[in-house]
């Protein structure tokens, strides 16, 4: 699809007629990869006076802007609109009699929003910030040099932030039949009539729910007993119920055995225990993991890496070549934009300003943006017990929170785990419509060393759903009688 929005995005993120600048004699920092980590590192280093070059082979903004967070959350918001419209009676409203999804309009909004956000990550803005931007394939040619389409960049320090790409499940016939990933799904111009989502992780869950709400007859297949295996069992249970209410066909403990084209459709053989079945769909979307992008001559630079887990870094995010650091998806287990951002800041400080910051010292929240959202920070109870830390959980159900009730958004909970006998917060899980917003309070508390009991003294505006956190703190206080 080429329209004004796409033209603007291209002009911002990879201008078609642009020529690379003449390389400087030597750069203080060469950043390879113009996604969230690369952009943050380049801007911050330049702002602090460093000579910086940024290399990007595709579009600035990386997955997050182009094929990840930004387009997916834009799509999710429209999907949520339609879900709310269908349940208007629940809010005292009336369901529109002619409720239809105009998919072209949905995707036009997606492109418009993405183009708007792309302005902040544009080549022009980077150059204004003092960064030399090189558009092309960057490859290490030595321990202190990177070549970009014939230009040689010499560096004092370098940061690899080349991100990751979707990993497809090894299902016979899948490649031949064709499938969508996050890199292609947002280019759709027609809504699939029948969609199969392979993978019950965050991406699969978010997009399966979204497409179901937009009108695709959608099934999601997960090879484990519950979705989001890393999350709490109770959170996955609530999500399963939400999916069922949306009309999403849920197949847990199920494996895809084979895929084939059948006329204009796609047939997929599935197995659960000893039972086999075949489902016919119009498109398949995979969300079964990601692989790091490590094909850039790392061995010539003396950088150790693994094709599955990425570049090996120490806790200061330095690689086996002391001149070279890494940040973001290419080296981290937690592949989120905010960890890419945070790791890039660590690299700038450690690489250029003699910092000793550690990645392990970070408190990292994350959120799956289904409806309800599932957010988490810190330890799960099981992790605490494995470390020999006795834990207690203070749980507040959202159906006890006035604002959640007024908004008919009362399915979910706030669970805050403390070290038993103290109010030290070990971690938390929130399931709520706005869990992603709410978790930041607990992240702050953990970073600042604020205990759960102290949170009871923090005035929360009434009525807000964040009051659930205050209620958990009050519950803790009541146990201290």
């Amino acid at each position, binding site marked *: 699809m080429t329209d004004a929005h796409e033209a603007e995005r291209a002009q911002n993120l990879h201008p078609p007629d642009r020529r690379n600048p003449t390389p400087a004699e030597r750069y203080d920092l060469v950043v390879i990869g113009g996604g969230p980590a690369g952009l943050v590192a380049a801007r911050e280093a330049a702002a602090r006076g460093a000579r910086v070059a940024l290399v990007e082979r595709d579009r600035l903004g990386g997955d997050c802007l182009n094929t990840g967070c930004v387009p997916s959350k834009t799509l999710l918001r429209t999907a949520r609109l339609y879900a709310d419209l*269908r349940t208007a009676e629940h809010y005292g409203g009336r369901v529109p009699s002619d409720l239809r999804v105009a998919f072209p309009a949905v995707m036009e909004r997606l492109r418009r929003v993405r183009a708007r956000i792309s302005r902040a990550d544009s080549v022009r803005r980077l150059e204004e910030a003092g960064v030399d931007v090189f558009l092309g394939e960057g490859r290490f040619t030595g321990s202190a040099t990177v070549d970009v389409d014939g230009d040689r960049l010499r560096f004092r320090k370098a940061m690899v932030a080349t991100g990751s790409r979707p990993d497809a499940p090894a299902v016979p016939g899948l490649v031949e039949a064709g499938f969508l990933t996050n890199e292609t799904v947002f280019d759709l111009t027609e809504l699939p009539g029948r969609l199969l989502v392979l993978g019950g992780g965050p991406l699969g869950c978010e997009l399966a729910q979204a497409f179901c709400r937009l009108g695709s007859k959608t099934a999601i297949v997960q090879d484990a007993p519950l979705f989001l295996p890393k999350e709490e069992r109770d959170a996955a249970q609530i999500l399963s119920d939400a999916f069922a209410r949306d009309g999403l066909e849920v197949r847990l403990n199920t494996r895809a055995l084979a895929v084939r084209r059948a006329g204009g459709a796609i047939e997929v053989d599935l197995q659960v225990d000893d039972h086999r079945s075949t489902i016919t769909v119009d498109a398949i979307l995979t969300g079964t993991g990601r692989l790091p992008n490590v094909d850039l001559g790392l061995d010539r630079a003396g950088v150790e890496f693994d094709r599955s887990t990425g570049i090996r870094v120490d806790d200061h995010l330095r690689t086996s070549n002391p001149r070279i650091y890494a940040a973001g998806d290419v080296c981290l287990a937690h592949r989120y934009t905010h960890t890419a951002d945070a790791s890039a800041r660590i690299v700038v400080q450690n690489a250029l300003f003699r910092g000793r910051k550690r990645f392990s010292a970070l408190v990292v929240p994350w959120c799956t943006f289904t409806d309800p959202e599932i957010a988490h920070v810190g330890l799960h*109870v*099981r992790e605490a017990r494995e470390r020999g830390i*006795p834990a207690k959980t203070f749980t507040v159900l959202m159906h*006890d929170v006035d604002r959640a009730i007024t908004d008919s958004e009362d*399915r979910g*909970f706030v669970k805050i785990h403390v070290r*038993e006998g103290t109010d030290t917060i070990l971690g938390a899980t929130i399931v709520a419509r706005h869990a992603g917003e709410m978790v930041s309070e607990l992240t702050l508390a953990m970073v600042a060393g604020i205990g759960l009991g102290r949170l009871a003294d923090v005035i929360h505006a009434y009525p807000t759903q964040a009051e659930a956190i205050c209620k958990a703190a009050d519950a803790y206080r009541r*146990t201290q009688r």
Partner: protein
Amino acid sequence: MTADPEPQSDDALLHDLQHAAFSWFRARVSPVNGLVPDTSRPGSPVSIAGVGFALSAWPIGVARGWMTRADALAHSLAAVRFFRDAEQSERPEATGHRGFFYHFLDPVSGARVWRCELSMIDTALLIAGALTAAAWFDADTPDEQELRDIVDQLYRRIDWEWARNGGQTLRQGWKPESGFLNYGWEGYSEAILLYVLALGSPTHPIGVEAYEGWTATYQWENLYDQDLLYGGPLFVHQFSHAWIDLRGIRDPFMREKGSDYFENSRRATRLQSEYAWRNPNGFTGYGVHCWGFSAGDGPTDENPEVTGEERRQFGYAARGVPYGPDDGTLSTWTVVSSVPFAPELCLATLRHVLAHHPQTLRDGCFVSGFNPTAGWVSDGTYALDQGIVLLMLENARSGTIWRLLRSCAPIRDGLRRAGFDGGWL
């Protein structure tokens, strides 16, 4: 049994419910093989767990004068002989494998039906019943000695270690067509009995690390201002208590928390009442004295086309609160089964249900479930439901089953290996 306005005493009410539950088994047991059907519906297969409850029902019947010792022994012997002689192999049509048994069996041939799984927990319930019978029938007679010998043989034959499938914890099931099921025991559940029996085996005991691995998945929660180990459907908090007296004895987890599993079940029972009072989904009938969320029938068993965008309804499902699923269906038999834990609350609830929903009592037994919102009442009763009612009421009224199993060596050994101590241990 009456639901008329004339109030019965609490003991009379419980007596009638217990006698009706016993009669459920008495009316349905096969005199040939001692098996009982899973449900009251025609054509129902056998549930091995139901047989476990039946084996525990007969001693109660004798103790209460509802049947003779000879009849009880005859039924018990028929059942244990059946299981001793039934085919144990990898064949899909067998009755069992590795000492375990398939969840559902043909009532006559005993062959596996419904391509069901070889079930670890249901085998444990069966064996618990068999051990109960062996403890009860302690006379020095050839038949009672034979029964005890067969029960010992059945228990020793079970390869509990195999059921770990090389992992730390026990698997939930196995099928000849596809191997072990893709889920184990995560979080607190009714598996205490299973782990105790597996740990107490004199022939194929599992390692204590298996129990530790399971309890490592526990979550101690402050929920509605109560500290408890949450388990969802109420039967989770009841089944192990049917046979094991968990009052005052504590494993490492409960020692750490300063509680025990009996107190935990009391709190779980109260939690259900608290949830029903809140009634977040606005279902009809819910209240402080109208609750009961457990496993049972649901409206879509009979009305599969009944669905709603916001209020989905299920067929047979394990309903749990506060995290769900909750579709407005209540199971009063689970309230009866919690009488030992919270007698006042449960009795008040029973009286409320009898007054407002008398149609949920059939032949003196509470049906599997009812849904006031949908205007639906199950027409079925289940062996599991009536069995847990029978045993828990007996324990509440006399403690007989608890007393019998306290003297059972595998139970004591299993509890000790799991790290339980204190109280009667």
